[in-house]
């Protein structure tokens, strides 16, 4: 168990592509950190740099109080779980879990004790003698986790470990991973592009975009106060609605493209061009008022417990999504008036996308 420290870490691939643009990150002992971001943003790259599978072009990574930039992967005392499990197909599950210990020269009894213990924790006891191919996807993923935990490493690294599993199993395994991590108290870094996984697992969430960490914080903080328009749109599902607007002279309103005036309680300069962000779950239907948005229904999706209504707004046909509890039906073309509490309205700078 250890802290994990990244200082101004950069990665430039051999072909000249710069995948990581200087990331600073401090993960404390026993913390579960989740790297989330769209495909190609550099999550795997960063994780593999921590693992030692990619060289570090610039900056410094330390595990515990040791700088590991030039330390071989095997000597970094970390264990990694891969998306496609990467189990050795010709070895039994037992041998798969024992292999790392064997190479490190542990004696037979100690190996056996650790593998059996991990087998019990992961409910694999009956499956230890089988080969990986004789297991289901979920069981294989457990073996892969077993291989990681028998090593009792300083940190676990997970690269999208659940994305090959079906939806139901994914939820189960997610809970299992969380439980396991809390039980073992091992510092973990987990890569995913599934934001539900990200929100539920993370003690600390790192939202990445284009090789930079756009925001680092607890999931709830990030949800409540996204630092950039990108983060706001990426975290939360369905994603946040964005409408262009301009702050009024008296700074009490923001004027949308069709002239609608939304009440504000932000402290913001007048006449500034902004992007208004409102989450679908923070919109509700009201009777028309001074400060309501009039929008036309396009499609309604009923999910049983909740209903998603997709609407268009104004002359520019800006898209708005509304999330309502329960079942509702609207016909295409119906006109709804929507309202959001000013405290739940986010403002972003139009040019930079930064939160105002």
């Amino acid at each position, binding site marked *: 168990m250890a802290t994990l420290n990244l200082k101004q870490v950069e990665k430039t691939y051999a072909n000249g592509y710069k995948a990581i643009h200087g990331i600073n990150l401090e993960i404390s002992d026993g913390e579960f950190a989740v790297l989330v971001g769209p495909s190609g943003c550099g999550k795997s790259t960063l994780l593999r740099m921590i*693992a*030692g*599978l990619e060289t570090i072009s610039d900056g410094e990574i330390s595990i515990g109080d040791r700088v590991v930039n030039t330390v*071989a*992967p*095997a000597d970094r005392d*970390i*264990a*990694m779980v*891969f*998306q*496609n499990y*990467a*189990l*050795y*197909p*010709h*070895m039994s599950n037992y041998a798969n879990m024992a*292999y*790392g210990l064997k*190479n*490190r020269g542990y004696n037979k009894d100690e190996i056996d004790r650790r593998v059996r213990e991990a087998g019990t924790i992961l409910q694999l006891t009956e499956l230890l003698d089988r080969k990986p*191919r004789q297991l289901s996807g979920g069981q294989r993923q457990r073996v892969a986790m077993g*291989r990681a935990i028998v090593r009792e490493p300083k940190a676990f690294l997970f690269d999208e470990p659940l994305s090959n599993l079906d939806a139901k199993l994914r939820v189960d395994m997610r809970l299992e991973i969380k439980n396991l991590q809390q039980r073992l108290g091992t510092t973990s870094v987990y890569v995913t592009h599934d934001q539900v996984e990200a929100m539920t697992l993370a003690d600390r969430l790192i939202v990445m975009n284009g090789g930079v960490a756009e925001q680092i914080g607890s999931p709830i903080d990030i949800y409540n106060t996204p630092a950039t328009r990108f983060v706001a749109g990426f975290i939360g599902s369905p994603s946040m609605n964005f409408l262009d607007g301009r702050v009024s002279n008296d700074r009490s309103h923001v004027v949308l493209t069709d002239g609608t005036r939304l009440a504000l309680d932000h402290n913001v300069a007048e006449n500034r061009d902004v992007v208004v962000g409102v989450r679908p779950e923070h919109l509700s239907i009201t009777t028309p008022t001074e400060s309501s948005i009039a929008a036309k229904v396009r499609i309604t999706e009923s999910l049983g417990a909740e209903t998603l209504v997709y609407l268009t707004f104004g002359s520019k046909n800006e898209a708005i999504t509304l999330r309502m509890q329960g079942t509702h039906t609207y016909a295409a073309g119906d006109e709804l008036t929507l309202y959001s509490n000013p405290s739940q309205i986010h403002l972003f700078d139009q040019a930079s996308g930064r939160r105002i």
Partner: protein
Amino acid sequence: MYQSKWRSLTNHVILILGSLFMIMPVWIAFASSTHTREFLFQNGLQFLPGGHFFENYGKILFDQSATKGRVTALQMLFNSMVLGLGFAIGKVIISMMAAYAIVYFRFRLAMPLFWVIFATLLLPLEVRIVPSYEVVAKLGLLNSYTGLILPLIASATGTFFFRQFYRSVPDELLEAARLDGAGPWRFFIDILVPLSVTMIAAIFIIMFVVGWNQYLWPLLMTTDDQLYTIVIGIKQVYNSLYEGGQIPQFPKAFALTIMASIPPVLVVVIFQRMFVRGLVETEK
């Protein structure tokens, strides 16, 4: 149901006829090899075995004078076995290691080297046999097993197949092994080799048969009768069929031929099992 029965019946008839057609010459050779030469000379090729199986085979296996050279068929079979096994095992080992270097190590000239190796595929042995002979002769390796095997041991085909196979092994396996503390050598022995079993069996079969059937190369490399391979022996026996005004040695020639074909058949049968098992095992 009815139709598929008919179809499978016709399929079987065709297959059986085809097999008979292929097996018949071998059978005739075998049956004929168990008669005396006088009988064969008078009555031509035989469909039914005669009563001289042990006599003919025993003589050719153990008696030097039975073959033209001063060497028994047993010795020639042994020589062929050494050549075939050395050839196959050597090629498998060398090409596995060459492919390992090419695929897993980033060194300068890796690609050019690979293409150079690959290009030698285009040159059959016969083309480079004279310089190869020169090299072996200068090294003083004529008339030795080493001289027979060593110059042929590099295999472009084998290297190529192993390379393709290694490239299909997921990178994550290597990475997992690195994290598990396996160095390059451990990774090769513990992971790549077991995963390649199918490939090894396939290459081994092919190379053994190729090695066993070598003719021109051992003919040039050996002048000592004791190093003759069975294929050369057959040629010698057939050459001498009509020499000396005697009744031709047909039964002996046939017996030698039959014996020459048994080891490759055995190798194919045995290794094919491994091959098929490997195919089933590595699936997924």
